[in-house]
């Protein structure tokens, strides 16, 4: 199935925009093949295949966008718009990682939402007490540690909401999503130095915001 001629043709037809030189393990390679098959089927008109992609990546995209857009509803709208845009522009997919492609679309949607929000300001993070922010607890989870992580998550999200959107975007993309400086520069349309500056200043601003709660984070370092 994964080595079908259709997939080969599809993979040849997809020209990666940026060569990904990172080592790819077997599961990642399998995921890529699966994604390419789904994209090819979706391009042929299969809504089921596209919704398969949505199922695979909606959690990841919402997690990314919700950190960039303070308001949860607006974040959800941005993610929905990102999937709409992906569906409309399936033919513009030139290969490479579907996850990265969807991530770029979602980041653009989030930044659009931020611009919209700048014109129509709203209260940031109106639902900080939402229990949906709790991390999933494993069977052998330590309740004390889980509570600490929940508390950290709350204060970090509040601090992230307090810094500027540009700094927040850079920090989320670098520290949370793992993009490198150059990728962030390409995604946000600014220079490499600006990205670094935003990250450094953003972390300083975060630390100032968390001045009273830094003990939550110093524990790991003793």
């Amino acid at each position: 199935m994964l080595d079908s001629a259709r997939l080969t043709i599809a993979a040849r037809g997809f020209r990666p925009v940026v060569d990904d030189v990172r080592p790819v393990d077997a599961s990642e390679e399998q995921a890529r093949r699966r994604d390419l098959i789904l994209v090819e089927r979706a391009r042929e008109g299969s809504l089921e295949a596209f919704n398969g992609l949505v199922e695979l990546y909606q959690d990841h995209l919402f997690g990314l966008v919700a950190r960039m857009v303070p308001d949860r509803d607006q974040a959800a709208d941005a993610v929905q718009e990102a999937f709409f845009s992906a569906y409309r522009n399936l033919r513009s997919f030139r290969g490479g990682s579907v996850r990265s492609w969807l991530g770029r679309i979602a980041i653009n949607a989030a930044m659009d939402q931020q611009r919209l929000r700048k014109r129509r300001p709203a209260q940031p993070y109106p639902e900080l007490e939402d229990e949906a922010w709790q991390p999933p607890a494993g069977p052998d989870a330590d309740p004390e540690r889980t509570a600490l992580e929940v508390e950290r998550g709350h204060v970090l999200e509040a601090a992230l909401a307090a810094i500027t959107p540009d700094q927040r975007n850079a920090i989320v993309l670098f520290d949370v999503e793992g993009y490198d400086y150059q990728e962030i520069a390409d995604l946000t349309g600014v220079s490499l130095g600006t990205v670094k500056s935003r990250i450094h200043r953003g972390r300083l601003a975060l630390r100032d915001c968390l001045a009273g709660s830094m003990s939550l984070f110093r524990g790991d370092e003793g």
Partner: protein
Amino acid sequence: MPDPTVHAAHDRLLVAAHAAGDASGPDLERAAALVASCPECARLHRDLRALSAALAETPAPARPRDFRLTDEAAARLSRPTGWRRLLAPFSGARSAVGPLAASLATLGLAGLLLGGGVNLGLGGASSMSAPAPQAAATAAPAAAGGGDNVYGSAAGQGALGAAPAPSAAPSAAAAGTPPTAPVPSAEGAVTGIASAAPSVVPPPPATGPAGSPAVASDKNAPSAGVSAGAPTAAPSGAGEANVAPTRSAATPPATPVAEPPGPGPSPLAVGSALLLAAGIVLGLLRLAARRLA
């Protein structure tokens, strides 16, 4: 106890760059010195690194809803919008636009080639042979068309006298003005000659010594008649005729030759160009539509 005023003067951004691993060279040395010497800077350095690590472990927020597309949403998104909507009729695989564009362009091209061949074959020959007969044909009516015998004969003489000089006949023919129009009075021969001259508008009666034919003819009517009788005065301008009536007999006239107006593009050429343009436009529209699709 560290002095807070001393730490306030320290470069926090430098410490942040050092914590992120982005400091190098002299900056790295300065940052390292700050972290080593200032307890507050050292604490800031540790906090920034701890924050970076904590951010990476931040749990992902749970999504509030399912983002899968419904059939209605997919159908709505599949409909073309904007330019795509306008260009949609051109992009179909079975659209007749492509063959139509090719046919129109071919017809237009063939028509242009055919029209060009006709022009080259007939128009070229006619352009080579046309001037002499045309000049003669137009000079004759000009000579005969004057209601006044005096002007008519003068013009006729001018035309005949200019016959040896090739440029004189066309110039007389191309005058385009009725021979009697600019004639002010009975200056006869001179004015007749002036009217036969092609592009020389009789200057207004002025005081120039050798300028106007009117002055010359007023003062020297007999000589003007003589000069009118001399056919070589005809092609040259009036002033030149008055200044040196005999010199122009030897030198060929410098009168610019006025080409007869062209017949204009043929209907075949115009139609072919339109067909070609329509074919090209349709082809470009189809290309754009297929790219957008």
